[in-house]
């Protein structure tokens, strides 16, 4: 095709060409990096949780009154819940994974304060918890019922559990070169527990924490006036059971407040709310930039066409077919877009580097700018098509009309 003359002709329209190219470059840099961030967020949201989150209900209850018997109430509640038709299992738990709220601690493999502790979220619960969460115990054992002791704040001593179950990720952090099963871990006060079981995967409380996969389950029931239960239902039974559970728990003892009853899914969604908003805002920005880019291209191409009416007629008179005219404007547009895209790739990498260093984003995947350029090519060619087609309708007889 006629690259040479198209480029040489464009050199006489530097301002419009460079402005459009600049617009394309900036758009490319923003669109590519924003897409990459959206992908990061989407990946983050869709990480496997290791739990049966679709069928879990979370309840929080607060007992009131002077002589509210926490242990008796928990026992009765769990009894009620576990015997409800449609419920797979239920367990008391101090914190709910993926809820944004949790407890953490540091564990060591050597009883020495100078050794860096490995931080982990911890969940105090009973032997029903793994079945309730739907996590997969790959090695070792669950807790025995006799290992579950209630802890009543202010009344009983806080005791270090003899046994704990950890996630594979925590096991690997604690004992990178060894099998963690059966090994001791030391708490902050240097008391120790033994790892008796390993869960293959389970996410913890804070979705933005890089230790999300490091979790420990230790036996015990936090028998406070505040209690949380997790309840796992048969698949598809969750929404039907939710109001029933609410009603039954309320009815069982009116001496307390049901603080909330929610699906686990809802809690998880709240935890990712910021990520979702971010992704949505970026998506809007991308859409706007694409629309603006298309408009700029339509505008510039239309301007070029209207400015060259006579020239187009002359070209037609000299033998250009309609297709030749369309091709000319599409080629011109492609050149401007590609000029912008080349500058845009440089800008994209600079922005990506800045994001990487300032916001600890992962390194930009090279396929994103490539895809961005392809998308811009398609959009700009589509946008230029209408003015190009209009140009092709200019009759050759324009050439002899004297103005």
């Amino acid at each position, binding site marked *: 095709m*006629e690259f040479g003359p198209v480029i040489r*002709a464009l050199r006489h329209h530097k301002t419009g060409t460079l402005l459009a190219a600049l617009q394309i470059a900036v758009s490319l840099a923003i669109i590519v990096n924003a897409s990459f961030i959206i992908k990061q967020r989407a990946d983050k949201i869709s990480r496997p949780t290791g739990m049966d989150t679709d069928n879990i209900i979370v309840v929080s209850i607060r007992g009131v009154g002077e002589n509210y018997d926490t242990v008796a109430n928990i026992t009765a509640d769990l009894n009620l819940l576990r015997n409800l038709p449609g419920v797979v299992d239920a367990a008391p738990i101090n914190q709910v994974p993926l809820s944004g709220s949790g407890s953490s601690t540091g564990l060591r493999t050597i009883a020495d304060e100078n050794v860096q502790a490995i931080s982990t979220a911890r969940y105090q619960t009973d032997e029903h918890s793994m079945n309730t969460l739907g996590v997969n115990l790959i090695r070792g054992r669950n807790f025995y019922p006799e290992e579950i002791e209630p802890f009543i704040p202010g009344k009983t001593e806080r005791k270090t559990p003899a046994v704990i179950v950890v996630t594979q990720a925590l096991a690997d952090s604690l004992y990178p070169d060894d099998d963690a099963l059966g090994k001791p871990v030391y708490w902050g006060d240097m008391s120790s527990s033994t790892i008796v079981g390993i869960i293959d995967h389970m996410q913890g409380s804070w979705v933005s924490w890089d230790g999300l996969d490091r979790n420990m389950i230790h036996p015990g029931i936090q028998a406070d006036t505040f209690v949380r239960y997790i309840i796992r239902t048969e698949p598809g039974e969750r929404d039907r059971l939710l109001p029933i559970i609410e009603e039954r728990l309320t009815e069982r003892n009116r001496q307390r407040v049901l603080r909330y009853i929610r699906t686990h899914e809802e809690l998880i969604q709240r935890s990712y709310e910021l990520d979702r908003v971010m992704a949505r805002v970026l998506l809007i920005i991308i859409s706007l930039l694409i629309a603006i880019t298309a408009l700029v291209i339509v505008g510039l191409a239309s301007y070029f066409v209207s400015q060259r009416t006579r020239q187009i007629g002359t070209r037609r008179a000299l*033998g*250009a*077919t309609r297709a030749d005219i369309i091709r000319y404007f599409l080629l011109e547009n492609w050149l401007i877009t590609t000029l912008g895209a080349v500058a845009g790739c440089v800008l994209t990498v600079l922005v990506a580097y800045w994001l990487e260093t300032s916001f600890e984003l992962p390194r930009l995947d090279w396929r994103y700018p490539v895809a961005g350029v392809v998308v811009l090519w398609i959009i700009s060619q589509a946008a230029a098509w209408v003015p190009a087609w209009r140009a092709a309708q200019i009759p050759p007889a324009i050439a*002899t009309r*004297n103005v």
Partner: protein
Amino acid sequence: MLEMRGIKKFYRTEQIQTRALAGLDLSIDEGEFVAVTGPSGSGKTTFLNIAGLLETFDEGRYLLDGEDITHLGDNARSVIRNRKIGFIFQSFNLIPDLDLFDNVDVPLRYRGLSASDRRQRIESALERVGLASRIRHLPSQLSGGQQQRVAIARALAGEPRFLLADEPTGNLDSKMAEQVMDLLQEINQAGTTIVMVTHDPGLAARAGKNIRLLDGLIEDQQIVIDKAVLAS
């Protein structure tokens, strides 16, 4: 080589219909130099547009080079314009963003000629109109007469059988007009058929044949007898 029979052309606008050509009969032979004259609005440009396949007509039959082009489609017409016809316009119609080389190159590229062939044609065409030294100049850097010579070079480079010119000297002063006319005559003598619309009786007299249009019809047709022949 050009034969028109009963060509009619109407321009329809919302209110009125103008009859630009009223059933034109005409034939032009290979190698002729025809000057078309007539008052403004008599249909000269319309005739030239139809002859040059820039416009279609409503009635009649048109044979160019023995080929009936009456019902040809848009693409086929483009190809004929490109290969057989050279155009020279009153306002030159050079592409302002392109230098002389690229301007002359325009019709050659549409013909799909090789780069070396094109280069050779461009250089020799510009040589012929005496502008080879200005090959990388822009049209705006040339005088009107020079620009028209570039347009002639552009028309010549494709070696057309048939050169159509609508008032080629209309925007030029008389001295430049004479130069352009000299060039056209030279081209005609080399074998190219030329049809030129002009208002200038002096220039028309230099053509071999004069056709006078009036209201879309040929009012008068005469062969200009070479003065040299008369004198002898």
